[in-house]
């Protein structure tokens, strides 16, 4: 763990009173390596270490606290600061249904997360409608249909057609049936696929979702910055949902995505079952990241 690593590197500080630039260099290198091993983006780590370096240098060594604990505390607090603020609330519209749009790379967990959000919102007394706008992946519509059935939540589907139209028709359906929340499940796509990224911006223009959430796999490595960055430029994201955090992934992608886009992480996926969604907890995330 982080403390043991730092203890090894900076054991020699104990005699001194102040953390100077020279004597914390080894310690900071340990932190830097730990963050890179945790999959935090290289550039993000460089900028972060510069900030931490400034805070650490000149900090008074508290007599009762070991220096490595102090550095960990500075790093920990700085990370928690960067990852917050936390806002797991969804701002609902007071005129017509609130539309939530989920997007992201292939296999990140969008369809499953749509189900989780539907369950969460239904439990809060909302009346959600799931919209199966992925017409490309084999059995994607069926997958969402089964999830809806399992939850007792209605699902709007069209077997053929255009995803933009499906989204528009889904919202119309919600209006017709007096359902107050629409959750749009979109097909996974690459941020470098211009045609599919354009499809998303077309959905956004026509349907005007109140919230656009980027669903990001917590296992993602250095690429998190590219994909999240491009999605944010295209759609101005309102939130990020980090999935598959129930494993032992250190989840450095969380810091990269937050730092580069400024978009808050609202929820995390903690398993395959539909109740496995929690609001984002920066303290726990940082603990997982520092290993």
């Amino acid at each position, binding site marked *: 763990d982080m403390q043991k690593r730092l203890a090894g590197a900076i054991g020699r500080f104990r005699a001194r009173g102040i953390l100077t630039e020279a004597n914390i260099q080894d310690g900071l290198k340990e932190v830097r390596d730990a963050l890179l091993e945790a999959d935090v983006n290289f550039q993000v780590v460089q900028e972060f270490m510069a900030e931490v370096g400034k805070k650490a240098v000149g900090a008074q060594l508290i007599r009762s606290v070991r220096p490595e604990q102090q550095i960990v505390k500075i790093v920990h607090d700085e990370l928690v600061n960067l990852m917050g603020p936390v806002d797991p609330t969804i701002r609902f519209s007071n005129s017509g249904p609130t539309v939530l749009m989920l997007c992201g790379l*292939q296999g990140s967990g969008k369809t499953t997360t749509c189900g989780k959000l539907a369950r969460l919102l239904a439990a809060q007394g909302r009346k959600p409608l799931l919209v199966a706008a992925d017409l490309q992946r084999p059995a994607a519509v069926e997958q969402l249909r089964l999830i809806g059935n399992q939850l007792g939540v209605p699902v709007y589907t069209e077997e053929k057609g255009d995803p933009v139209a499906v989204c528009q028709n889904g919202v119309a359906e919600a209006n017709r049936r007096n359902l107050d929340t629409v959750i749009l499940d979109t097909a996974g796509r690459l941020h470098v696929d211009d045609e599919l990224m354009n499809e998303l911006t077309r959905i956004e223009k026509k349907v005007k979702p109140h919230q656009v959430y980027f669903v990001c796999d917590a296992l*993602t490595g250095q690429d998190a910055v590219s994909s999240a960055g491009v999605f944010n430029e295209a759609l101005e994201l309102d939130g990020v949902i980090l999935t598959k955090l129930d494993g032992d992934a250190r989840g450095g992608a969380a810091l990269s995505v937050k730092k580069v886009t400024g978009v808050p992480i609202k929820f995390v996926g903690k398993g395959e079952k539909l109740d496995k969604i929690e609001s984002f907890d920066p303290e726990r995330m940082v603990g997982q990241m520092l290993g």
Partner: protein
Amino acid sequence: VRSWFGRKVDASFLEDLEARLIQADVGVAATGRIVARVQESFADKTAGEDLVEFVRNELKALLDDPRKSTLAEAETGPTVYLIAGVNGSGKTTSIAKLSQRLKEGNRTILLAACDTFRAAASDQLEIWAGRAGVDLVKGSPGADPASVAHDACDRALARKIDVLIVDTAGRLHTQQHLMRELEKVRNVISRKIPGSPHEVLLVLDATNGQNAIRQAEIFTKSIGCTGVILTKLDGTAKGGIVVSIRQTIGLPVKFVGVGEGIDDLQPFDPSAFVDSLLE
């Protein structure tokens, strides 16, 4: 890499080389080793074609496989390939692509839909089987995956099928009971068809970071993986994780996934992979 030419191989150059490799997900330890080797041979010299060749060869040496992308086959009877990996990595789609490819050798293919857990998992594989023109064995939702594997082996033997490919549910390597379930599937297969599975392919998502090494380690300990299918290389992720995986666990990359279509599977080409990693 062209931008390196003419630069002095000093601390700042080595930092830039390190940045390049880490950003390709090569990882801290493996990168450190390569940078140290470059420093040994080129410190204070001028970077040129020979330095680039040196780095290319370091990486290629790690990734080369004398067996290349050939998959092991049974001497007699059905060949069985077991496909596993974490959630959403691309297993089901890769199986479709693999069927298409293997079919071209005039082989009869049978698929086993042993993901009995996830919503519409067997429906998804069924659609792909239809597109590839191959048969499928599936069980009822929630059925024991090992029993579906058992039935698939029976059918493969009875119909003298050339290749049986077994799809399994995504699972995180930290889920002990799910790893036991996967071992049970493997055991059923190897008991029914001696010598099988002839390949155990771990499907890894190229966008994954260092956790992929843990995945490779645990899946290999559990079911004896023999190779990797690295998917989603058509994105911007470089997939450098396979360098450490080859170095620490020894798994070779057999194929790469480069898209969502049935033809989007290519044999692994270490040279092309390394060129793309360094560009």
